[in-house]
């Protein structure tokens, strides 16, 4: 079976876009989780001004639309002499936005650890750092896992916004072809399938991580 020129062109463009999407999603997801853990811990354990700094960051990036954030990063920053490439602008926006949401999941998980866990560790002579790193964080990670995974699933889909700052990923590539051939239904249906594939893959990986971290008393296998 041979594909018509339209489909050949479409799939070639989408595959190229897929690579760009992956190049956006993977570092953004990792960066978002790292920022989220840092900001979440700051918001729980920090001194009052550190806490306020973390709260302010989360409020700003959860409180404004991602599109606006991307426009500011790409079209706004040059006004103060800072030029970001489309790719850099998109990835910065994704990381900061995702990190803000992740920090909320991490914060909730850290706050859910009962006081007795701190007391138990302190009573044995653990330092504050040992208590947090060896007892509190390993438990909080297990509690935050589902929320953090959910945010990564979101990230995969909002990565499609990169095309508004001219970073040509899946959606951007597809839109070009759709406009050229004026065949929107097929193109966007296929783009939808690509995202569905990406999310399915992510869910599979998240499930594996969940199983690996399973401990009786923390969810089900």
């Amino acid at each position, binding site marked *: 079976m041979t594909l018509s020129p339209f489909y050949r062109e479409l799939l070639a463009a989408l595959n190229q876009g897929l690579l760009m999407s992956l190049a956006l999603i993977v570092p953004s997801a990792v960066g978002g989780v790292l920022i989220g853990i840092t900001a979440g811990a700051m918001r729980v354990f920090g001194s009052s001004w550190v806490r306020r700094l973390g709260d302010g960051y989360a409020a700003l990036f959860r409180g404004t639309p991602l599109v606006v954030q991307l426009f500011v990063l790409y079209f706004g920053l040059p006004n103060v002499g800072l030029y970001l490439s489309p790719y850099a602008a998109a990835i910065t926006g994704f990381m900061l936005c995702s990190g803000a949401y992740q920090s909320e999941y991490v914060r909730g998980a850290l706050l859910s650890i009962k006081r*007795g*866990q701190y*007391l*138990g*560790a*302190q*009573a*044995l*002579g*653990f*330092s504050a750092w*040992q208590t947090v790193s*060896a*007892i509190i964080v*390993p*438990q909080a990670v*297990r509690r935050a896992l589902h929320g953090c995974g959910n945010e990564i699933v979101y990230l995969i889909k909002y990565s499609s916004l990169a095309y508004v700052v001219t970073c040509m990923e899946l959606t951007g590539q597809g839109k070009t072809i759709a406009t050229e051939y004026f065949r929107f239904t097929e193109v966007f249906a296929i783009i939808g399938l690509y995202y569905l594939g990406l999310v399915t893959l992510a869910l599979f990986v998240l499930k594996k991580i969940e199983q690996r971290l399973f*401990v*009786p*008393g*923390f969810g089900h296998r």
Partner: protein
Amino acid sequence: MTTDTTPILRVDHLRKCFGAACILKDASLSLRKGEIKVLIGPSGGGKSTLLQCINCLVLPDSGEIHLGGQRIDLANKADLYRLRQQVGMIFQDFNLFDHLSALDNIAIALRKVKKMGKREAAERARLELEQVGLAGKAGLYPAQLSGGQKQRVAIARALAMDPKALLLDEPTSALDPELIGEVIAVIRALAAQGMTMIMATHQIGLIATLADEILFMENGVIVEQGAPASLLGPGNPSKSQGFCDRLNDLADGGG
């Protein structure tokens, strides 16, 4: 100079207020090696706060703590870590680490605090579990253990640190009646081995038979202290006997 009569743990004039509420007003006590003091009195009398102040899980507002003749500097974190390492604490609700197996609950303290190697820590942990009759449960997580088993793991965990003294804060209060016996048996065995302890408890059997001295606490003050022989006995007008009578009435009423 340290002799056998020097107390291994001494606290003087401990005071702790939370806002306007003073839970602990002025508590002093000293503990010699092998001595067992039992802390009794009504709920809210300050027993838990006193125990938590002794190993500084709650920092006292004022007062002094001496461990083995050395004064603990309450403002010095290293001093506090050292104090807590040498004075074990058993909680009412166990406070086992939920994400670790029984064995790892014990081993992690040995590795983090005592800086033991992985294998050595696991061996010691296994030994301590054997001591409390849980050798077969090493791989189970807190969610898979009964209350009595959890408390025995908690005791094993405290003992693995080779504490100079053990503080027990109502160790059997959170347990179902049929599980209390196994924990009491472990505590009795500890007493027989000469472990130095302060225990807050409502277990009438433990009060009379284990205590070298009874401390009766009320409104943040130790109002009565003495040997069980001098405080307890039918018709004794002491507050301690009155308290034990009420516990007995409750037990009879319940049975």
